[in-house]
Structures are given as structure tokens and as C-alpha cells.
């Protein structure tokens, strides 16, 4: 009698120590993999899975940045338009052809993307913090600005990388592998590892969580809320730039619709990954897991032929709601 109660109690306390909300996205990913293996024989092959991960790279990396913004209590709706804007400027820079060596040109373009991406993030951050405008409004406005500028730059058409040498030099960044793993997949995990380090192990990361948890407490603790928030937008801009780095070699072209709706996919990945939209909780690996889930759902639908792939958007929309319901019920239990 006494024994059973103690073992029960210790089992209960073990389950209380494991935060179910942190584990849930990985369980969902695992179940999805099981489901996918029934859908098609080719699904659970290394090739297919690496392919899926490669295609999820843009959203995963952008969503890592969004994890910072959202953890600090902000929101960035402009990331999709920012991808189009940054990538377009980078292609135009390469087309201008001021550097003779193709490799030098690619490296310079990468630096340009990083700088422009961070500058775009800085603009978003300063408008929300100094201008004291709701992040939803700020980034909705900036979404229009970046998208409009891209349309204007492309004159409604496409901006295409014209120099064949540069294209040939850049192409492997998306299509080649290192140690059997495609570069975009490396990019996801390296970005994730650095982001996790920054968010979980540095003072800045702690400040991000504090600001998202309760702005007043952070301020009364001597933390500059404006600085921390602004920096999360700069990190978001940097992540958008990294996504652009691996986006350009894939198509070598941008149009006015590049990155359309990516902001919603990124936010979905963040939320499915267990980060709270109200701030104060940030889960980097959960976010990456969320991005994989979104891509795998599409992949399973494509392979299974049971559900029309035109329903992809509807399914992804349903996923975010189901994820929220599951998390809500986990909160109640704990």
C-alpha cells in the first residue's frame, strides 16, 4: 500500500518534471513519420527525408529568427516580403558585375544580403520600439513596403541572375552535399545550434525571455526592453538573409510573389514548435521540428494521392489549430 503510493507519487513527479509541451512537437513529428511510412514505400528513405528537410530550410531558418521575436513578445509579418526584397537586391548586385571573380562575387553578394537583412530587421525593430507602434501594425506596413519595392525593382516581372559563371559557382550551395547531407540541411542545424546557444545560454537570451514574460519586470530589473526587442528583429533579419543565401542558388530568380505567405508558415512553425505567441517561452528545436512537420505533411499528401495536394493550405491551417488545442490540454493537465 505504502509502496504503491510512493511509486505512484514518484512516477507522477517524473511526469511533472518532463514538460509535455516541449516534447509534444517531437512526438507529433514521430507519429507523422509513422503515418508517412504507411502512405508510401519511398517515404521513409534517406533520400526522401533529406529532400524534405532541404525544402523546409527557408521556413525553418526564418522561423528560428521568428522564435526570438515572438519569445520577446513581438511579431514579424514582413519576413516573406523581406526575402523577396533582400534576394532581389542581391541578384541585382551580382548582375551589376563589379567583381570579376565569380567566387568573389558570390561571397560579396552574401555579405550584401546579410547586411541588408539585418538593416531591414533594424528598421522593423526601431519602428516598433522607438516609434512605439504595435509590432503587428509595424510589420504589416513594412510587409507592404518591402513587397512594393520588390515589385517596383522587378517592374512586375522577374529579376534573374544573368551571369552564367556566377550561377554555376553559386548553384552547389543549394544542390550539393557535404558528408552526404545537403548544405541547406547543414544550414538549418548550424543556425539552430547557434540560436539555441544564444537563447538558452547567454544573458541576451535570458533577457529576451524576461522581456517576453513581463516587460515591466524586465524594465524594473534594469534591462533595456527597447534594445532587446530591437535586437530580436535584427536577428530575424539575419535569419531572413541566411534563408536568402540558400534560396537564390535554387532558382536564380525572384519575382514580386517570392516568399508570399512565408510569414504565416514561419509563425505556424514557431507555434507548432511550442513557443507561446504571448512571449516568454522560446523553443528553437521545437520550431525547427515545426517546420519539418509542415513540409512532411505536404510530402505525405503528395506521395499518398489520397488527399488532393490543393488542400495543402487547409491542412496546414488545421495543423496550427490542432497544435494549439493539444498544447492547451497539456497545460490543463499539468
Amino acid at each position, binding site marked *: 500500500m505504502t509502496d504503491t503510493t510512493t511509486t505512484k507519487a514518484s512516477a507522477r513527479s517524473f511526469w511533472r*518534471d518532463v514538460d509535455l509541451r516541449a516534447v509534444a512537437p517531437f512526438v507529433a513529428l514521430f507519429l507523422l513519420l509513422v503515418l508517412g511510412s504507411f502512405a508510401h514505400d519511398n517515404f521513409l528513405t534517406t533520400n526522401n527525408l533529406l529532400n524534405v528537410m532541404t525544402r523546409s530550410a527557408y521556413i525553418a531558418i526564418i522561423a528560428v529568427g521568428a522564435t526570438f521575436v515572438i519569445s520577446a513578445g513581438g511579431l514579424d509579418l514582413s519576413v516573406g516580403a523581406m526575402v523577396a526584397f533582400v534576394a532581389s537586391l542581391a541578384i541585382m548586385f551580382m548582375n551589376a558585375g563589379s567583381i570579376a571573380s565569380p567566387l568573389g562575387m558570390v561571397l560579396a553578394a552574401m555579405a550584401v544580403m546579410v547586411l541588408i537583412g539585418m538593416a531591414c530587421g533594424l528598421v522593423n525593430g526601431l519602428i516598433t520600439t522607438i516609434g512605439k507602434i504595435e509590432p503587428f501594425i509595424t510589420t504589416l506596413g513594412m510587409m507592404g513596403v518591402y513587397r512594393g519595392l520588390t515589385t517596383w525593382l522587378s517592374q512586375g516581372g522577374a529579376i534573374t541572375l544573368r551571369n552564367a559563371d556566377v550561377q554555376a559557382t553559386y548553384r552547389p550551395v543549394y544542390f550539393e552535399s557535404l558528408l552526404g547531407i545537403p548544405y541547406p540541411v547543414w544550414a538549418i542545424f548550424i543556425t539552430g545550434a547557434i540560436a539555441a546557444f544564444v537563447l538558452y*545560454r*547567454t544573458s541576451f537570451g*535570458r533577457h529576451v525571455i524576461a522581456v517576453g*514574460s513581463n516587460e515591466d519586470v524586465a524594465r524594473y*530589473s534594469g534591462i533595456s526592453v527597447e534594445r532587446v526587442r530591437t535586437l530580436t528583429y535584427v536577428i530575424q533579419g539575419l535569419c531572413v538573409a541566411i534563408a536568402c543565401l540558400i534560396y537564390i542558388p535554387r532558382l536564380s530568380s525572384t519575382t514580386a510573389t517570392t516568399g508570399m505567405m512565408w510569414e504565416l508558415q514561419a509563425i505556424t512553425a514557431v507555434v507548432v514548435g511550442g513557443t507561446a505567441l504571448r512571449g516568454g517561452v522560446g523553443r528553437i528545436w521545437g520550431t525547427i521540428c515545426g517546420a519539418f512537420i509542415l513540409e512532411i505533411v505536404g510530402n505525405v499528401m503528395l506521395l499518398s494521392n489520397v488527399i488532393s495536394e490543393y488542400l495543402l493550405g487547409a491542412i496546414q491551417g488545421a495543423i496550427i489549430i490542432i497544435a494549439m488545442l493539444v498544447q492547451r490540454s497539456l497545460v490543463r493537465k499539468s
Partner: protein
Amino acid sequence: MNTATAAHISSGDPTPFMASEGLSMAFGGIEVLKNIDLNIRAGEVHAIIGENGAGKSTLMKILSGHLKPTRGTIRIDGEPIALSGPVDAEHRGIVLVHQEILLAPDLTVAQNIYLGRELKKGFVLDDRAMNDGAAKAVRNLGADVDPVQTVGRLSIARRQLVQIARALLVPHRIVIFDEPTASLTPVETDALLKVIDDIRRSGAAVLYISHRLPEVKQIADRVTVLRDGRLIATRDAAELEPIDMARLMVGRDVSKLYPDHVPPGDTAPILEVENFDVPGYAQNASFTLKKGEILGFAGLVGAGRTELMEGVVGLRSGRGKVRLNGKPVTFGTVRNSMAAGIVYLSEDRKGKGLLLQQDLRTNLTLASLNKFARGLLIDSAREKTALDDAIGEFDIRTRNKDLLAGQLSGGNQQKLLIAKMMLLKPGIVIIDEPTRGIDIGTKEQIYKFIADLAASGKSVIVISSEMPELIGICDRIVVMRSGAIVGEVSGEHMNENEIVVLATGVTTSEVA
């Protein structure tokens, strides 16, 4: 002073209105309430007192249907019942006035009071009836609040009155007050005690939780003392003096609540504030603070004491001369004042002091994180050591070091907040309402901590609405009224009368 004194004790009614038998409650295997046998008679004010963590709040949550007990029975009119939730409890006439303010800040007073039970004419809201009803409900509480005023613009004390008015609108047989006077001024407290007396006269029962023992003595018919989840005693209030209550609560003698403190000699001031303005809150404030001194700030709620201090440390914009050790300084931001060795502990522990959703370690080191950084990394081992040290030094009582700050009791939250700010190694500590909502045992610890701090050569400013505590621990008391410093008392002039006269601007006879 007050008409609401303890009235007759209702003559031996055989069936109490509400009773509990063997009520027990456990969270995760830990019993926080053990075998509580309590009976509540109609027409009595029954005070529940006990230290933080004694189980008062848990007991109230069970009686009001917010929690289900692990064991035991609740009877109403002798019939065993199972409360399915707070709504069920309200239907049975049990209403709880929460300690926290639970109002929608953007709605008006009337809209809040009638929220969820709006008066209608057909399909249309009957605003006039609701405004009239709200005005009447608030006036019954002895307050004058405009029913169309937005709640967010009211002071905390007034918001609380609105909350009480809202609760009393439900037909009630038992009203549970959870520390209603914690943020009220003496005048407002008196008004509230009159309201409680009225409820008693109407034949309903009142369960009254408070840390202010003189108030309990004044208003209660019977007193139940809880300690460590057990019911220690239920006595007639007439038999108990506040000091007896304190002894029962703590389980030992607490004759000396305030520690000895020797005021500093005639030394040069460490902090001088001259003609300081905080727009909208304080004008032309000047005061000085000596090394090793404990300086009190008295005044009514809304007198501008908090805002003045927030202005001085750079949490609000303010203008004026500030000299630290004789050198003029300006703190544009709170970071600068912290770096200069001044810390401010907010009165709003839950809203501005601690991250309730984060663990103790995160909270402890938040203000001084750079001291725990090794290169880019936070040294979590040193953080853990710091938490162990703080738990020992400040006697933070927690069953588990991984708790969230919000899971600690009020007194332990305050200790954690003090520990957090002391990690900054300040020379000047400004502490706002240090013992609000805190039990007497913890109060004693905090007073001792403040006295020790001053004895070690630090200077302390205490803002408090509890005059006995200011008089008990301070060397001097500055009094503010409507944003201005109106006087200063020390020595034999440090008594409630002189302070009330200064704080209200009227003579004592008028106050009474």
C-alpha cells in the same frame, strides 16, 4: 474611531450555516490542509488568520468552489454538498472577493460591476440602470466613484472597492474577503469595515482573511487560526488580543515585532534630492538620506510616493537635482541608478518585481546577470549556488528549487525579490510596501533585514501605507500629500496622529 466593533456573538445556533468536516487537501502528495473542522454561523464575522503557507488561501478556494478537496465534507445547512465550481458556489450564496484585482481595465466601473449579468431592456443594454445601480453599490461602500469612469484610470484602492461592489451584487449568504485591506488607506479600511459590519447585520456570514491583527480584533466575532495546514484554534475574538493571535499563528512568542535600530549620528547625507518634479505625480520634492539611515515615506495611496522614487531612480521621466555623495548625478535610465548603487523594489511584486512564469533561479539573477556571465555564457552552476545562498540567507521557503516564482507564497516572493535586488550590492535600497500581504512571521524577518541593512552602513528608504510599521522601523518619516512633501516627523513626533494630520491635511478630530 469606528462604529464597526465586534457585536454580539450569535446565540448558540445548533446548525451552523456552513461547516467543513475533516477537510484535507494535497498537491502532488504534499498535504497543505489537514483535517479542517470549521463551522460558520449566519450573522458572524469569522476571521481566518495564519502565516503565509498556513493554508488560508487553499481553504478559501475550497469553500468558494475553486478547488476540490482531497478528503472531507462540506455541509450547507447541515446537508453535505459537493461544489462543482465557483459558479455553483455563487448559486448557493457563497461569494469570494479575490485578493487580486480581476477587472477589465478598459471597461467602465458600471460595465465591470455588471459584467456577465448586464441589465437589458429587450435586446438593448440598459446603461442608465446599470450606471445608477453601480453608483449606488459603490456608494454603499462609502466611496465616491463615477460609474462611467474607466477602471484602468482608478487607483488600486478604488479598483478594489469596485471589485467588492461587484461581488456583493450577487445574492449572498456568505462573503469571503481575502485580505481586502492590504492596499487600502486607514480611511478606506474603516469604510470597508463598516461595509462588513452591514453584511453581518443583514444576517449573512463573513469570512475575513487578514494579516492586520488589530483589524481582526476590531471586526471579528470569532477567530480561527491556521498553522502549517492545521486548525490550531477557533476562539471568540473577545478572548484574544492581537498579540495572542500572533502567538497562535507563529507558535512562539512574538512580543518584539520591530528590531532595535540606532539612528545614525550627524553625518553628511549620502543622497540629496532637491526640487524634484515627476510630471503629473510629484512637484518640488526635496529630501535627504544619510548613510545607515532608515527613512520612511508616509502618505495616502496616490500621494505620489511611488512615482517620486521611480522618477529619482530613472524609471519615470522626472526633473530635479539629485546628489549622490555630494556629487550631482542624473539617471536617465534605471540601469544607471543601479550601477550607482541604488535599487528600487516595486510595491507591485507580481507585476513589476518577479517573472511569475519563470523559475526562481531566472528571477534571482535577472537584474545582475552580467555577474554570472563567463564570456558569452551564463554560468548556471554559479547561478545555482547563488540560489542556494539566497534561500539560506533570506529564508525563502520552497519545497522544491524548480518551482516557478508564481508558485511561492507572497512572503517568499518578497524575500526572493529582496534577494534579487541585493545581488546588485546596493548602497541605497528603496523598498516600496515591503510587507504588503505578508504574514506577521515574515514581516518580522523583513523588518530585521531592513535594520541589519542599515546597521551595516547601507541606507534604506521605506514607502509604506502601514503607519505602525513606519513608526516601528524608521529613523525619520517624510509625509507626502497630493504629490508634495508636506512635512517630516522624527523622534517623539513620530506617531500616527501627527502623520495622519500631515497626510490628509485635516486635524485628527475631523478624521474621526
